[in-house]
């Protein structure tokens, strides 16, 4: 394995061993503390623009399998690991992580003190980083000059509607960077799903006579999306039960008068206790967020807070007072991460069935 370097905006340089693609890459560096599920993480569209550091030191152990894709196209800019295994030991496929990364032109770097890196990232604000062949001044200049796109949703969202058929409720799923876990959970509940582009209007939704609407997770800042998306949400929630998650949740909050902010340190993991306000129960969920809804901005005559993260106090769920619409910051489908929150999909369908009566 060739020697390559990970360089950070703060001037730090790490020597490591290259795997995956040998391309030079630049992105925002984030830390993910899930112990398993690297395939789900790497293929999650929310990592568009980002380089992922894994805290679990041994990555690649089971290779790549067909059940763990959260999207077919992966948009992560790179991955950083302590140790990398170039094998595939799972019974579902023979593709190794290395080959997969090469196919998708994603560089990886191994042999990094990821614990030290994690401490560094947590101390600093979010930083840009590059994986490069040479860690000279030029490389740092390039890194500092790099501007990351804010058009992620447009780039990852589907251009045309497509169905995922079923015999049950007719659900519209708005794709802001669709995570396949959502489709899997809806398929388990036998929904007839139509996936639509991020800029779908409420009229286009209503024309399909759906029973409910889901707003998917996605990459980037909710403020980078135009007002038309918020209008779609406002108009649709009055007519249909709505369930939003991740970026969708942030947009749902914006549409209902709340504000969002960028977290000092992005949080990617599934170890935080999250309290469900209404039952006082604590659950664990797959979280990956760079932005959060500001609790002070929530208009209490419009929204109820339903979930709170006990570690950083962020709002993890809200619900509309007047309509059967709700949203969560985490990924209720897991993938990777706990299944504690999967029944939110059932809750959504109960809202749907209750409306239909």
């Amino acid at each position: 394995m060739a020697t390559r370097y990970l360089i950070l905006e703060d001037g730090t340089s790490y020597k490591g061993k290259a795997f995956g693609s040998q391309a030079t890459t630049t992105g925002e560096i984030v830390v993910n503390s899930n112990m398993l599920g690297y395939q789900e993480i790497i293929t999650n569209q929310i990592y568009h623009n980002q380089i992922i550091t894994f805290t679990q030191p041994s990555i690649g152990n089971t290779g790549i399998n067909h059940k763990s894709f959260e999207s077919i196209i992966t948009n992560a800019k790179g991955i950083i690991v302590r140790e990398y295994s170039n094998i595939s030991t799972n019974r579902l496929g023979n593709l190794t992580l290395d080959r997969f990364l090469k196919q998708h032109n994603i560089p990886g770097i191994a042999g990094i003190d990821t614990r030290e890196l994690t401490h560094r990232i947590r101390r600093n604000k979010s930083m840009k980083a590059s994986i490069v062949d040479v860690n000279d001044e030029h490389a740092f200049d390039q890194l500092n000059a790099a501007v990351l796109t804010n058009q992620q949703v447009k780039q990852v969202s589907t251009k045309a509607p497509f169905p995922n058929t079923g015999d049950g409720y007719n659900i519209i799923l708005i794709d802001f960077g669709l995570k396949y876990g959502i489709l899997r959970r809806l398929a388990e509940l036998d929904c007839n799903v139509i996936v639509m582009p991020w800029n779908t209007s409420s009229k286009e939704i209503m024309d399909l006579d759906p029973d409910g609407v889901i707003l998917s997770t996605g990459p980037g800042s909710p403020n980078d999306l135009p007002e038309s998306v918020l209008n779609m949400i406002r108009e649709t929630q009055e007519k249909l039960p709505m369930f939003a998650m991740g970026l969708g949740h942030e947009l749902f909050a914006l549409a209902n008068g709340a504000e969002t902010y960028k977290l000092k340190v992005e949080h990617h993991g599934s170890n935080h206790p999250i309290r469900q306000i209404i039952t006082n129960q604590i659950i664990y969920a797959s979280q990956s967020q760079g932005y959060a809804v500001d609790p002070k901005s929530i208009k209490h005559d419009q929204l109820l807070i339903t979930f709170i993260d006990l570690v950083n106090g962020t709002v993890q769920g809200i619900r509309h007072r007047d309509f059967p619409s709700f949203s969560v910051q985490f990924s209720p489908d897991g993938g990777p991460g706990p299944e504690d929150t999967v029944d939110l999909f059932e809750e959504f369908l109960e809202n749907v069935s209750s409306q239909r009566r």
Partner: protein
Amino acid sequence: MFNNEIKKVLILGSGPSSIGNETELDSAAFQMMVALKKNGIKALIMDNNPFSLTMTEIQSANTFVKEINLKNVLEVIKKSKPDAIIPTVGGLRAIHITQELMNQGILRDLNVKVLGISESALKTVNDSNRMKTVIQQSDEPCIPSKIVNNESEAFDVVRQIGFPVIIKPINQKDSVKRKVCKNTDELSYFLENTFDEQNKKCIVEKSVVGFKQIEMVGIRDENGTKILVNGLENVDAVGVHSGDSIVVSPIQTLTDIEYQNLRTATFKIMENLDIVGVCHLQFALSAKDNLYFITKINPLVNQSTAFSARATGYPLVYTCTNLMLGKQLNEIQLPEKYNHLTAVMEPSLDHIVVKIPIWPFENIPQASQRLNTVMKSVGSTIGVGRTVEEAMLKALRSSQFSPRDVLPSMKNLDNDELINRLIHPQSNRLLVLIEAIRRGYQVDDLEELTKINQFYFYKLKKLLDVEKLIVNHPMELNTIEHAHQFGFGDGMMAETWNIPIQKVRDIYHQYNEYPTYKSIESSAGELEQNIESFYSSFEKENESHKESQKTALVIGRGGNKLGPNTAADYYTAEVLIQLHKLGYKTVIMNNNPNALSLSPQISDKQYIEPIQLGDILNIIELEEPVRVFVPGNRHFLMKQLKKYTELNVQILPPDQDTGVILPKNVSYALNFFVTNDTNYFISSEKLISNLNNDLDHVTNYEMPYIGLDYYQLTKNIKEASAHIDQSNWIGLVQILFNEKDNGESEYVGIRPLRLTETIFLSKATGINWIRELVKFYTKRFDSKIIDKLNTNQNRITTMRATFPFKQLNIHIDHGNSSQEIGAKLKFRLNE
């Protein structure tokens, strides 16, 4: 809701150590006691294990030295009137007694609650039918089985569940043994030839031999909040007891989907059983499809929960004690060094822990070495590292007790025997696997033969590559750097290159390369906390810094073997406690996951490292201890350490290799505390051998020896004192006597008092002699303690060693002291 009604609880201890129970239960009881105290609850303890720290740390008025059985427990409950009893740190024996007390309605009548385990969970332990019901109620899969009456019904079942199947007799007392049938012929043949014509009633069960074994440890609070503390991957497949398997944490070869299935299943079972506290589940996973079965439910503290606490740094026992008192996970106030959120964060690890078992076959060669579903190992060691290879090699180095740091070779095995051992696992499993790779076996074939995931062969292969690098590129910085990354020690390189270890160290030290120590904590670097438990790596950031100007380093015993080992670990714990009391900052180095001496409450800092010269020197260079204590005899290590003359090293008891010739026959001894100017007589002791008067077979002790009359004793003391004066011995010294056939006794030898007998002496005299020894060697001994000596001859203390023969399924009449696994303590009055 915090339960205010509980003011006084009785903890049922674990009794003498045995296979499957080392010091982890006592360690848990100790931590539980600390947590109970914090909550203002009085803890009583009942145990007859002389090597229990909990027994020492609880006021003697609240301890009951009695064998744990139904009659005695009932007696103690009636006498001490606790509000509740806690059976979860007493192993299965305590659980069974509690089941019995509950079934007989005794607890209800006496208004005594059971803490730490729910009624439904208690009923499920060791009741396979109930376990099956619980699993089915939770909508989870248990191993399919059915009672059949004839061959045709048997085949009906097989058509449903497929081969292989296990055929079990209905009546356990039947002479018919269970049998695995892999195909139609085997099944027909077995049914035809084993059972009589009329009655073919038997159980047909799906065989999961060869399935992957996974263990999960979860906790739950009263409000239903559940955390998965740890997942354990057994490297060996079903067929080898999980206690005899190499274990890796966190789980390495499952996908997240598989993992989450098991996590959810664990939670469903815990919910069903209304667990408040800890629960350990075992699973069998098919290697071919997504099939899994729940095979065991253990709602109590055991070696897997102890390993999980050690591996994750999660304060498991402390948390569970609070949970059983009715607190919720987010309400628990942890000791200061933890982040206040640690208890309620689901652990996420950024290190890897590997556990390797230690078997007793060296001391008991008669036992079958074949590993099966009955546990045979008596101890284990763990290695912690930042890569699987590093953790695995550290665990292996720790388990091998080779002070030279090189791995024992298996090259003498012939090929047939090697294949046989790959298919039928024996002790030293990992070395056999390494040998197979060395001989060029292909990974696919190895996976087929061993049912071990090829991931591990791939890792072992990488280790061998590095070994080759060490051999072929000696004395190069690059080689050393690589070797360190993969967990090789400096001693191994020194041995291979035939140079002093210091030379190896000089090569990398001159490039300013030193080990970096990383904290064993459960948030993967997210939370700020000061957990003082470390492992080494060679990376960028070091998190452990010199503890103080007055640090004492104590070098633990490592993995348990037979002989005085659990006693040695208790001894080590006492040394740590006393050093701390004397104002030292204490640092312990050990690698036994079950070790009492690693309980975070009794030292200021813990290093989980191999006990080998290079690793010890690394810590010494960082901590610069003013004193080093080495409990127990380790000649080779001592010889090496003594070369570093600037170190203040004290071995306890003092080293015996200074030319002591021990007698063959003994019958009693006198024990002295010897200072530079005085010999204090402490007690006489009857040494009871189970084979004539053979010293090696002395496994039974009585104190004082009431057979000595005053005249004889006075004469012996005088004689002994003279021998002491002639010797160089100081500290605790034992003078051995033998009674001849004519009734006369003669002096036969002198030796430092052994570990086990030092503890025994403490129990008998009411003075903690380990602590006095520590004071003595740190020049803080005050002879006034001798005045407190209990000279009451009315109480006789006995200690009887216990052996693992029954568990190993062998019969040995005369166990010797190197085969001891534990001991029982008893007091009686001299009538």
